[in-house]
């Protein structure tokens, strides 16, 4: 009974979404074009040019006026943004390497987004792309901040004029994360405005990514003094690598909550990015600020879909023995798969000989590879 209801609801959802698609003009959101900064070769030496020239640099063409002003104001930040965009793409492709949609990117001029038209949808994948990119910018800018490549961020190692002997505030670089977070907000969210439901979703998902970065920065302290007393206290930061943030976001992707377009209002007062989403299934709990949200069911990503710019799973490699999403049954959508056996030669039985040589034998291995038809 409950399942029936759910299915009805889902069907209804797709219906409303479909009509919604017709209303909203399909056009790459302008705010997402900065992703194409990740294009190899795009970053010329010009980006390291003096501040004045940076603004009109042709490499910054994908950026909007506001974004350009922001990176001009913070010299060095643009390089961090570039590396952040690359980091996001790498991480996305790593996390989705075993799924039908494997985060494909294409560089086709500045007109469209490099992730393809998936970002104009409102499905789980869209949510992930938005969150991972904003997270990557926050992470990369924060990191650059602590390495001193961005001069304007408030983290510097000069001695702050504070009353020492107070409890030790993090004097070094707690501001790194803050700066990265703020920068990512100003840079990524800049064009996601308006009252549209889609924009609210995107803003929320952007924020989800950033919150994951900020919360994974941990501060640890230790007391030093005679026999365990706390005469002085030193503190430091531990920041995990971006892989674990990607992993956490992928977890959020798996547990993302579907929300209804109605009744989504901003919280009044503080919190520009806090929305009241109502979950599609009223039995589910409301999405928190670390939960990804979406409103549209994902396509099945089986066949070539020009409206998505996705080539389908034809020719994709699949795992013959797996029963999961990377298994051939699911990956090829039941179209069947082609298995070929091939022989490779590789080094094996390597022995370390004193000193200092590694001697190996050449072995032949039989391997199989399956690809979807």
């Amino acid at each position: 009974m409950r399942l029936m209801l759910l299915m009805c609801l889902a069907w209804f959802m797709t219906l409303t979404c479909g009509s919604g698609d017709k209303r909203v003009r399909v056009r790459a959101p302008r705010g997402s074009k900065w992703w194409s900064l990740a294009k190899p070769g795009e970053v010329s030496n010009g980006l390291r040019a003096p501040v004045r020239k940076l603004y009109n640099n042709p490499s910054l063409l994908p950026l909007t006026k506001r974004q350009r002003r922001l990176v001009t104001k913070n010299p060095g930040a643009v390089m961090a943004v570039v590396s952040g965009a690359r980091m996001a793409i790498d991480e996305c492709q790593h996390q989705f390497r075993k799924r039908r949609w494997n985060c494909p990117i294409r560089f086709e001029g500045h007109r469209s987004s490099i992730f393809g038209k998936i970002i104009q949808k409102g499905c789980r994948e869209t949510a992930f792309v938005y969150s991972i990119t904003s997270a990557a910018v926050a992470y990369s800018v924060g990191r650059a901040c602590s390495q001193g490549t961005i001069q304007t961020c408030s983290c510097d190692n000069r001695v702050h004029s504070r009353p020492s002997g107070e409890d030790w505030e993090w004097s070094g670089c707690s501001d790194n994360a803050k700066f990265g977070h703020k920068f990512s907000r100003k840079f990524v969210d800049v064009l996601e405005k308006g009252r549209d439901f889609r924009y609210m979703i995107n803003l929320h998902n952007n924020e989800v990514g950033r919150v994951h970065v900020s919360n994974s920065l941990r501060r640890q302290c230790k007391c030093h003094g005679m026999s365990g007393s706390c005469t002085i206290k030193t503190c430091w930061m531990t920041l995990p690598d971006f892989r674990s943030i990607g992993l956490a976001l992928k977890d959020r992707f798996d547990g993302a909550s579907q929300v209804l377009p109605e009744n989504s209002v901003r919280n009044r007062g503080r919190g520009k990015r806090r929305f009241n989403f109502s979950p599609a299934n009223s039995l589910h709990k409301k999405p928190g600020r670390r939960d990804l949200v979406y409103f549209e069911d994902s396509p099945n990503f089986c066949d070539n879909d020009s409206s998505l710019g996705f080539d389908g799973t034809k020719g994709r490699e699949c795992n013959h023995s797996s029963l999961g999403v990377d298994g051939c049954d699911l990956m090829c959508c039941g179209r069947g798969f082609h298995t070929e056996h091939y022989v490779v030669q590789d080094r094996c039985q390597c022995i370390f000989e004193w000193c200092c040589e590694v001697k190996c034998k050449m072995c032949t291995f039989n391997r199989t590879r399956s690809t979807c038809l």
Partner: protein
Amino acid sequence: MEDDFYYDDVGADDYGQDYDDISYEDLLEYINNYEGEVTPEMLEILESYRKRSQQKVVDVSRIAIQELINNCLTPTCVQAAQHLLPLFIMCVVFKLLCYICKVGTKDSRVPPILVHLTSAVFGIMVLRSFFNMALLYLVVCCSLSYFMLCFVCAWNRKFCGLAAAALIVIFSISCELFIVEPKTWHKIRGSQIILSMKIISLGIDIGSGEIPDVPNVFEYMGYCFNVGSVIFGPWISYTQYYKLLDSQNDTSSLFWCAQILLTSSLGVVCLVYSNCLTHWLILDNAQQWILAYRDAQSFRFSHYFVSFISDATSSLSGLTSDSTSPAIWNVARPQHIEIPRSLVEVVTNWNLPMHNWLKTYVFKAVRPYGVFLAVFMTYVASSLLHGLNFQLSAVLLSLGFYSYTEFVFRRRLSQIYDACIQAKKCKPKCDHKYTSSHPAVIVTNLGFGALAMFHLAYLGLMFDSSDGEDKGYTMWHTLDKWAGLNYLSHWVAVGTFIVYWVV
């Protein structure tokens, strides 16, 4: 404009929790209430949800060395420098002043009162920079004791030491229990211990007539708040302090500089090791005992840092020690603690000035009434000095019991086998049949050393900089930690003692 974004995201998340735990009961209840057909696949899916919520994802990968430097090494060094530079500068200025004092001829030189006054004022300034207003407790303790000393000395000189000790103990305990809030007390406790040792030793020395008369206010304050030893110690005797004025034995300054540089850089290395490297080398997913060893080692290196810095500040301010060994090892000797021969050696080398203090003023004083009582009183005194903290008292008493057991057991073994396997090293020419170079003796000593390391890991593991650190650890924290290791070390020690009894 969107420039004034609110910012509240770093730190705790107020809502939006991690995955809710699905307990087994919830799962059963859900399945029972489920109306449709329960398929195996569905059970599997539900089970997988449960599993995921069970395994807390702990990030245990080792971060890159570059990141370690950025996130931990640099800030640690910067903060250490910020703390220590004022202290070092004060010490140097004080030393210069002493030097100027000594340079002039007898008639034209600066009066010694000025030296004492500077020592005290600088000491109080340093205290102010470390503890803010909490330094008042120290000042109050110091002045109360001075009145006490004057009063008792005028009445009956013999009781000076006892009165001072009683006052200090009462003051410390009432401060810890009633007057000062735990966090503040925990902060100033290190300095309070040093101050207590100074005052008690002064009282006893006056009582025994070693110091002819009660020092005047300036001398007394100068001694108590001596800038070179007020924060991190080490304890110095009044005679040692007084040598500042008349000593002519200024060693060559280049050597002196090099020594201080070496000591302070060793200190910083220990600090970095304690903060960053222990947790980088041994990750959180290691075996339980290795983790215990890591936490204990981190604590030990933090102690070496304090010892080295105290050494550096004291020699920087011109204090000289009586010992003949090189000045670097005046306070602690890490090499004897990290690779110990026995626990007795560890206890001795942990803090040499404190060890000397306990030996001179407690052990030797109680010795006439029996050795066991003397040992016991020594540990009681050391516990009282450290305040009534359960964790420290438990550690100190365990340590006392362990080292006593070890000492008597090894002495007995050494008598039976006629070999150099006592807790203390044999003298070069001993009359044992098997000397230290005999393979079996070496192996036995290494084994006892390993046992000592095991005990140290067990005893030191609860100084693990967890949440309670800045207020002092609670009793439950200690017992939890030990229960996690099944009190193994205590059983081992009891076992050793029983074996000693039987043999």
